[in-house]
């Protein structure tokens, strides 16, 4: 509806403005246009536009039915048939046999008036219908903004270069934010932080206990799937017994921490980004800064510490549930007893494997907290900003988690852990 419905009941003196927020007449004309376009039966468009000259006045006749569905006549072509706008001293628009009209006629008239203005030729609109004239005036009311022309589209190489640049900026921003968080942790350890204990405990509960149902479900299914895969392959070699090796090694060393972290990145990382993003949009963070309170100390630290504490605990829990999932398949589908399964669990692994899994959990927890909080604090101000921040937190978190997992596995291989 363009400018929307005006205040038609405002107790104002009559005005001559065509601004629909002030002058109801212009907006009523727009409503008529809208209604005719969508609610009335439109006859096939005829769009008659002809021109003739008398003296130095160019008369442009418009008639017939003007409805969207036909091609709008070209203004230059119509004017050129009678000598063109540039050779006229004035232009007069004459409706003749005009039966119906919508934006198509308005478009023609808008372009005609603009061409005349560009060539300093006066235009006489007095003969236009009462409900059409205000719209034509409205289309000319505000001068064209001098914002400059749009840049020419970039080449693929340019766009790729810009993308690389943005990724580089993102890396710098993440590293800077990590540094600020470390500084804040240092202040906290020295007793100079501004974190509220209540916030930390509430967030720890939300991050750990409240996440148990989803972690239980996913971990159980992961153990189940791992055991299925093992069963399918190992049974061909009559090596059913070794499915417990697979479950044990896979869950404790890799999948327990990895799957828990991915779940938490989607659940908790997104929540952090959305909370801080909403606070940014509603100026709560500005209000903290006005008081001289660091948002990193007050808002980021409790979240970071909460997920730092929660993720190793959830990983231990996920490991146990994943093993139970694997055990379920082993005893139901394979020729393996419970005693055999649990004995086989402990054979391939060492303490280092379990510790590696927990080290990964600590690193992943830090990544989730940093990514979620950073994206929240970077939230913009438009309607999609908070949603974008939450999405970005999840994508960033999962990407960094998988990358960190690869790096940690490589380091473990180098150290022969």
């Amino acid at each position: 509806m363009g400018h929307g419905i005006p205040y038609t009941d405002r107790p104002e003196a009559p005005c001559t403005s065509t601004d629909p927020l002030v002058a109801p007449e212009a907006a009523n004309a727009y409503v008529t246009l809208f209604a005719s376009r969508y609610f009335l039966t439109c006859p096939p468009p005829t769009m008659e536009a002809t021109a003739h000259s008398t003296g130095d006045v160019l008369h442009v006749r418009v008639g017939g039915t003007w409805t969207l569905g036909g091609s709008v006549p070209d203004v230059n072509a119509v004017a050129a048939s009678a000598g063109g706008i540039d050779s006229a001293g004035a232009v007069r628009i004459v409706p003749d046999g005009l039966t119906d009209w919508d934006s198509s006629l308005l478009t023609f008239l808008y372009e005609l008036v603009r061409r005349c203005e560009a060539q300093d030729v006066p235009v006489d609109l007095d003969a236009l219908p009462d409900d059409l004239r205000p719209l034509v005036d409205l289309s000319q009311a505000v001068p064209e903004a001098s914002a400059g022309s749009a840049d020419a589209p970039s080449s693929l190489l340019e766009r790729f270069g810009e993308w690389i640049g943005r990724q580089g900026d993102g890396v710098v921003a993440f590293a800077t934010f990590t540094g600020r968080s470390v500084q804040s942790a240092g202040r906290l350890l020295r007793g100079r932080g501004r974190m509220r204990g209540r916030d930390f405990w509430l967030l720890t509960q939300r991050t750990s206990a409240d996440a148990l149902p989803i972690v239980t479900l996913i971990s159980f299914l992961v153990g189940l799937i791992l055991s299925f895969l093992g069963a399918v392959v190992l049974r061909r070699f009559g090596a059913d017994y070794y499915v417990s090796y697979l479950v044990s090694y896979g869950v404790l060393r890799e999948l327990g921490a990895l799957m828990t972290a991915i779940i938490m990145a989607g659940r908790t990382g997104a929540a952090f980004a959305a909370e801080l993003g909403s606070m940014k949009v509603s100026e709560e963070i500005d209000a903290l800064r006005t008081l001289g309170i660091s948002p990193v100390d007050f808002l980021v630290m409790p979240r970071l510490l909460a997920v730092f504490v929660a993720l190793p605990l959830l990983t231990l829990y996920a490991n146990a549930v994943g093993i139970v999932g694997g055990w379920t398949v082993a005893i139901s589908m394979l020729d393996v007893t419970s005693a055999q399964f649990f004995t086989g669990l402990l054979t391939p692994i060492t303490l280092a494997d379990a510790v590696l899994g927990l080290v990964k959990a600590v690193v992943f927890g830090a990544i989730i907290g940093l990514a979620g909080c950073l994206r929240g604090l970077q939230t913009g101000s438009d309607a999609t900003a908070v949603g974008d921040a939450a999405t970005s937190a999840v994508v960033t978190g999962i990407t960094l988690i998988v990358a960190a997992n690869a790096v940690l596995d490589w380091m473990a291989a180098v150290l022969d852990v």
Partner: protein
Amino acid sequence: MPDDAPIITVDNLTLAYGSFVVMQDLTFEIRRGEIFAIMGGSGSGKSTLLKHLIGLQTADTGRIQFAGREMNGSEEALQDMRREIGVLYQHGALWSSMTLAENVGLPLEEYTDLPPDDIRRIVSLKLALVGLRGFEGFYPHEISGGMQKRGALARAMALDPAVLFFDEPSSGLDPVSARRLDDLILQIRDSLDTTVVVVSHDLASIFAIADRALYLDIETRTASALGPPADLRDDPPNERVRQFLTRTAA
């Protein structure tokens, strides 16, 4: 009542985001005890100027002095200023995880050595002053928008600031509530001798309460008018000021 001594001095200030200049060559003073309005069309830089005045942003060119002290972006200068100002943001900006009492009490915890009991009593007083007696334990989402704004005003007044900044105070309020807020602003200035800086494009409010108004001109990207609002309306320095203050289109 206002006296001629300035509490805030702005000298040749340029506001920019990167290479995009929002406003340039801003030079004006805000006198102690006056109600000073900053007005202008959408996108004219009112909120940007406010952020510079309250220390959230630092300008690359120009100077701002607060109570005779240079605001050069140093943390020490900002900390001194923060004790003496209060800010009411457009939508209140109460911290959603804290009760009204905690919101109002945080500035007192941060900048005074008062014991918790004294803070509690002062908080109750501040909330009573804005008509929220009994709402100390309520969270922001449990009260209406108008009540949130009053709670935010109580927080802004917590430290009995020398200068109160209001960002679009009547935004989202019905006409009666907006009028009541105007009356409250006048009461605060008259009773507490507080300087008030109001960013607004609510003409009724500007004419009702402002001693002087500064017009930020989006066309020239500078301030093109400064003076009592009625004088600016009756004898505007240019057509844009006249259109703005009389609510007429071009």
